[in-house]
């Protein structure tokens, strides 16, 4: 305890600094003015002023996911807090560690429908990992330290601390992080050794094993990913990753089959369907991954390694659950069997896989008769950014799936996308957070023309902090993913999915002091990308792409992995089942 009592607002600043926070993403308002005043008087914390509180949370997510640290948000009461809700839900779904400080009306007015009052802890209860209402300044520093602990330990997630204004003015004692440990919350990190040994045995015995890695690997960190990579290589097993897991295993390694799931590769999905042992590592058998549950990987035994026991046996029954930090489990596996895999013969399994690979499921019409194919745009972006330290964020839609398919990641923490919630408007603010954390890096938001308008106000933040983020818009003039589903499921009735009245993105860039360019011809592609990379400062590259292109391969809703649509021809021949229609 520090002897001198200090104000609640000063306690907030001190606690953040002691937690190692260097940047806060926020937006001021009446209820948090004391904190903004305290911010004004210090130099340890940097504040990034966003233009909408949703943007603050996504920026903090981008910061967190590209650094492995906790992202911090500061917003005012009422509308400030409610605007943050989408971001918090996004962070909960994708397990991103966030601490969000919200202002609140003074304690004596709580429940009175006071000006800018919202029941913030009530509203955010289902969209946070945990939340606090601080009613007494004496609890303040403990609760902040606890919030950081909760946000980053176990399965990470967002934590809200609701701060009534009188608590920020009140004087109270400050306690250091070491003095504050949560009473009871201790997620299991170290795995059960016997189960690890059993897993190694099962992998060695399997004829057709498949590793299926997810975002848990990225959350566990670079070392966990390296351990995972080593395990896969030693056991000579194929490996697939979820959308959230991309980068956990080097895409260039021949053991990698590409992404799994609804828009995953043919080889990854077929391998999942046909394997005899599925080893899920920090992945949660999400419905985008499993397809129809009763046809999911029917012949396999399943091992599930996860830090969150509630993820195990939720959708899919597994044979061997291992609760623990995936990094620790990988290390334990490597230790258990230093030479596992020696003498394994997986040639039969690999022969099958090569047959599926030969399908070349990501092929598209490369003839490019005057129109830019979106896949081509991303392929060129990938090729021309080799040699850069490049971080990619995305919005949500077809462009997101093409980015996942065509941009290859060899390292964790370089790919940020909204997976669980699928939040349009995520990419630009997330890119801001990434760029703040990595000022020298190349940060690209691969965007759709519809999504980008959902948080376009953040261009003003980009301008204020002179952030050199690059917006790479695949402009197909449609909410393409919606249009694709309408084509597939609703007889081509494109109800409200045409993005009419789009802005002139070049002028829009210029209005925010950035550089803009539009291209319509494939011949301009390389030149435009090089120009984007050369141009200092923020850039919007508006790439007019084929408005009718659909994203394949695709497992339609309600279908199984071995019922993939590989292209437009399959689409016409395999109507979606009635049960599939009702699925999202």
């Amino acid at each position, binding site marked *: 305890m520090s002897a001198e009592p200090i104000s609640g607002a000063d306690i907030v600043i001190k606690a953040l600094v002691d937690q190692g926070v260097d940047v806060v993403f926020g937006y001021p308002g009446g209820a948090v003015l004391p904190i903004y005043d305290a911010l004004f008087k210090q130099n340890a914390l940097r504040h990034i002023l966003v233009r909408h509180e949703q943007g603050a949370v996504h920026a903090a997510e981008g910061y967190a996911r590209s650094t492995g640290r906790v992202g911090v948000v500061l917003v005012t009461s009422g509308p400030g807090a409610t605007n943050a809700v989408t971001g918090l839900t996004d962070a909960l779904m994708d397990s991103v560690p966030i601490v969000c400080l919200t202002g609140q009306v003074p304690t004596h007015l709580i429940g009175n429908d006071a000006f800018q009052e919202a029941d913030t*802890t*009530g509203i955010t*209860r289902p969209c946070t990992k*945990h939340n606090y*209402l601080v009613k007494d300044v004496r609890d303040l520093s403990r609760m902040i330290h606890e919030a950081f602990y909760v946000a980053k330990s176990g399965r990470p997630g967002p934590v809200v601390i609701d701060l009534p204004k009188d608590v920020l003015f009140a004087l109270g004692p400050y306690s250091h992080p070491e003095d504050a440990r949560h009473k009871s919350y201790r997620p299991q990190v170290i795995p059960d050794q016997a189960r690890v040994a059993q897993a190694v045995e099962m992998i060695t015995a399997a004829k057709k094993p498949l590793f299926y890695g997810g975002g848990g690997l990225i959350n566990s960190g670079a070392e966990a990913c390296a351990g995972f990579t080593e395990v896969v290589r030693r056991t000579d097993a194929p490996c697939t990753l979820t959308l959230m897991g991309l980068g956990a295993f080097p895409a260039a390694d021949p053991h990698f089959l590409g992404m799994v799931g609804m828009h995953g590769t043919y080889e990854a999905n077929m391998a999942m369907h046909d394997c005899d042992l599925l080893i899920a590592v920090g992945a949660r058998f999400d419905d985008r991954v499993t397809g129809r549950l009763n046809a999911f990987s029917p012949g396999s035994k399943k091992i599930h390694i996860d830090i969150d026991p*509630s993820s195990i046996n*939720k959708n899919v*029954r597994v044979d061997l659950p291992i609760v623990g930090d995936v990094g620790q489990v990988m290390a334990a596996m490597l230790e258990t069997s230093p030479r596992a895999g020696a003498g394994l013969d997986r040639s039969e399994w690999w022969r099958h896989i090569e047959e599926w690979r030969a399908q070349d499921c990501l092929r598209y019409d490369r003839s490019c008769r005057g129109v830019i194919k979106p896949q081509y745009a991303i392929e060129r972006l990938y090729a021309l950014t080799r040699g850069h330290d490049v971080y990619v964020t995305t919005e949500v839609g077809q462009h997101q799936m093409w980015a996942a398919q065509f941009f290859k990641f060899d390292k964790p923490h370089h790919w940020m996308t909204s997976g669980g919630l699928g939040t349009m408007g995520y990419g630009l603010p997330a890119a801001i957070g990434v760029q703040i954390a990595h000022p020298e890096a190349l940060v690209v938001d691969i965007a759709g023309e519809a999504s980008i308008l959902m948080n376009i106000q953040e261009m003003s933040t980009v301008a204020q902090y002179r952030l050199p983020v690059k917006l790479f818009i695949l402009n197909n003039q449609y909410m393409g993913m919606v249009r694709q589903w309408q084509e597939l499921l609703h007889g081509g009735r494109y109800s409200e999915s045409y993005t009419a009245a789009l802005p002139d993105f070049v002028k829009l860039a210029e209005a925010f002091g950035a550089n803009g360019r539009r291209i319509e011809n494939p011949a301009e592609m390389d030149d435009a990308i090089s120009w984007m990379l050369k141009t200092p400062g923020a850039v919007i590259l508006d790439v007019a792409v084929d408005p009718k292109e659909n994203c394949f391969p695709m497992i339609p809703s309600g279908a199984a992995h071995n019922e993939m649509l590989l292209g437009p021809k399959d689409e016409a021949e395999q109507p979606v089942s009635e049960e599939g229609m009702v699925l999202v």
Partner: protein
Amino acid sequence: MNGLERHTIAVLVDNEPGILARVVGLFSGRGYNIESLTVAEVDRRNSLSRITIVTSGTRMIIEQIKAQLQRLVPVHKVLDLTDEGPFVEREMMLIKVEGKGDVRIEALRLADIFRARVVDSTIESFVFELTGSAEKLNAFIALMEPLGLVEISRTGAVAISRGTTSL
């Protein structure tokens, strides 16, 4: 495997604001059943409350419920009494019966058989207090119905394991 099972689950939690909303929100948000839920502080010094939840679901759902409860930050312990060996489960009920003459006498006679206590009476009514298993309470209600049952208030189940084991 798909049969519905009824489970009684005891949960030890920090007695802090919002904890009940968190537990109830978990059940409603994820579509789990609550047959009954009771809560009260059981450890003043450590500020701990005990929640007893009676729920039903498939085996997989029951396991999910326990894992999800365990994941709530203020939850210290989750114990599935149904799984963990013998336990005692009790519920209390106050039940009001209105009537005159023979009906009154019959109500009193049945109450005696069930060991229900009269905790209030007027010339036209009784309030009985009855403790027991849910089945016993239901049986008593069924008997009181034709005799002029007008109102019921039940606590929901509380439960504790038999023998020396404790939460």
